[in-house]
């Protein structure tokens, strides 16, 4: 009997190091499916961040490079300039991209570097046990905001898509989530659009994915998904913020 559901070829069959209920596994799978669908495994080069996804190269069967914390867009630029015909993407968390790597992401967008950035926003530093991220919601409790994030003391969460939308070089910007099969399918479509933007040489694309971190949100996985739908999306509304297709 022909299997109707199987592992993507680009996804390596290996035990995961991610926590139960984590969103990274779903997103890795989506990337692998798209690489298979577009048949670009042999010409794709990925960037792993510093953060929970540092070991992304253990799961994706493609050429990959690790980058220092926050620097994947710069390293991706260096690769893409050497190989303009290859598909280059960076995979980054909120600490990596929106805190220590803010300068790199803004200037990579401003150069409209023809790469795709996959920005996984889970509103917390997971790898270092749950400190405040630049995207931590107001009143959200973390190890470094034990009373909840207070705007007077800790500042406000940063909205990356909205910020990058002010930059002319940004060509495709979207925010999505993986809280339901419907949202996962939508996320896959947006990711695919990101990769296609690059293939068609449209310039810089970024897809922000709201993703659960049940362990450091101190919730069970179901509540974590509900937290995204009920709380995160009010601060980080889903949608498309820049699209070269509708602009033309």
């Amino acid at each position, binding site marked *: 009997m022909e299997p109707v559901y199987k592992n993507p070829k680009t996804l390596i069959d290996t035990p995961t190091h991610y926590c139960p209920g984590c969103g990274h596994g779903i997103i890795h799978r989506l990337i692998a499916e798209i690489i298979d669908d577009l048949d670009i495994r042999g*010409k794709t080069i990925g960037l792993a961040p510093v953060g929970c996804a540092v070991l992304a190269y253990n799961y994706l069967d493609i050429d*990959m490079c690790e*980058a220092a914390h926050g620097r994947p867009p710069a*390293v991706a*630029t*260096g*690769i893409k300039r050497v190989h303009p015909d290859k598909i280059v993407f960076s995979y980054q968390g909120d600490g990596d991209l929106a805190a220590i790597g803010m300068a790199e992401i803004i*200037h990579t967008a401003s150069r409209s570097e023809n790469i795709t950035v996959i920005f996984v926003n889970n509103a917390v530093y997971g790898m270092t046990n749950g400190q405040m991220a630049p995207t931590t919601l107001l009143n959200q409790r973390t190890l470094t905001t034990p009373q909840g994030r207070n705007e007077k003391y800790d500042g406000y969460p940063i909205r990356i898509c909205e910020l990058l939308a002010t930059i002319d070089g940004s060509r495709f910007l979207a925010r999505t989530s993986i809280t339901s099969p419907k949202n996962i399918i939508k996320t896959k479509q947006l990711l695919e659009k990101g990769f296609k933007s690059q293939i068609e040489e449209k310039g810089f694309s970024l897809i922000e994915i709201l993703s659960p971190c049940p362990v450091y949100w101190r919730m069970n996985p179901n509540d974590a998904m509900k937290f995204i739908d009920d709380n995160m999306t009010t601060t980080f509304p889903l949608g498309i913020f820049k699209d070269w297709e509708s602009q033309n």
Partner: protein
Amino acid sequence: MSTEKNQKLLLTGNEAAAEAAIMAGCRFYYGYPITPQNEILTHMATRMPQVGGTCIQVESELAAINMVHGSAAAGARTMTSSSSPGISLKQEGISYLAGSELPCVIVNVQRGGPGLGDISPSQADYFQAVKGGGHGDYHTIVLAPSSVQETADLVFDAFDLADCYRNPVMILGDAQLGQMMEPVVFNKKQNPNLYKKPWALTGANGRRKNVIKSFYPVKGELEEFNAKLQKKYRQIEAEEVRYEEINTKKADIVIVAYGTCARICKEIVKIGEKLNIKIGIIRPITLWPFPCDIIRRVSERVQAILTVEMSAGQMVEDVRLSVSGRCPVHFYGRTGGGIPSPKEILEKILEIIPIKEKVTCAT
């Protein structure tokens, strides 16, 4: 500019470094403005498009060194340059490059420090360059030119050394060498494809995937990797030491100096003859690997060694380690943009070695 082979050109050290990189097949340069190395960036901005290369004026030194990381990982010859404060910013990236065993060239046109310091010549980044600079057990190969011609030659060689050992190579110059104009001839043959790079990221088409990383979280793996690195460093120490030796055979005193300081010291060898003092010079060209052996050998037959630097005394520590007490090691240095003059150095020598016969000291 035209760079026909064997044509004599009048260039600044900075321009010569940039042009030599292009001649060596470097097509990816990333830089940020900082005096006194701006001419490298501006030269590249003009020249790279002419040769089908890329020059990006980046948002930060961090971006520059990480773009170098990317282009090196992608298998290309790549370079960045800066001056002292900017090189400090690049150190994290240099550690990652060394840890990922990526070949690249980094030019440091040293200026005075610490902090913002000033823009005048200095050699106060020696420790940073040869003792690591960033975190972890690693070395960059460090080459120290002392003329504009040698800057061009060493930048050229740096790309070969980097590819040969899969290791970052640093050119440690200074503001004097970077800003000064001298005649240069580019006479080396370009051979950027000498070294195959099967490890490079090119897309895993028809082969197993390549991963460039410096992260070894499984216990034991990192120690094993470090052992491999150290083995490589021992090989570099055995095979790549370079130095210039002048007059050391019968010298009473030998000066150890590099770069601009070495040039100045050469001036007093002749003055020493008039005073009946035989002065020799050892000029390290590789600062790492350091020419320990020749200094040790010379230390067995001279009265004293004098180290001259534009710093408060950095290389002198490596000289002392090489000498290991076989003879006295003295130091003369200037800091903060001060350049030692031949007169000052001679006075220091006369302090160490009294004149044998009564000769009037006419400097």
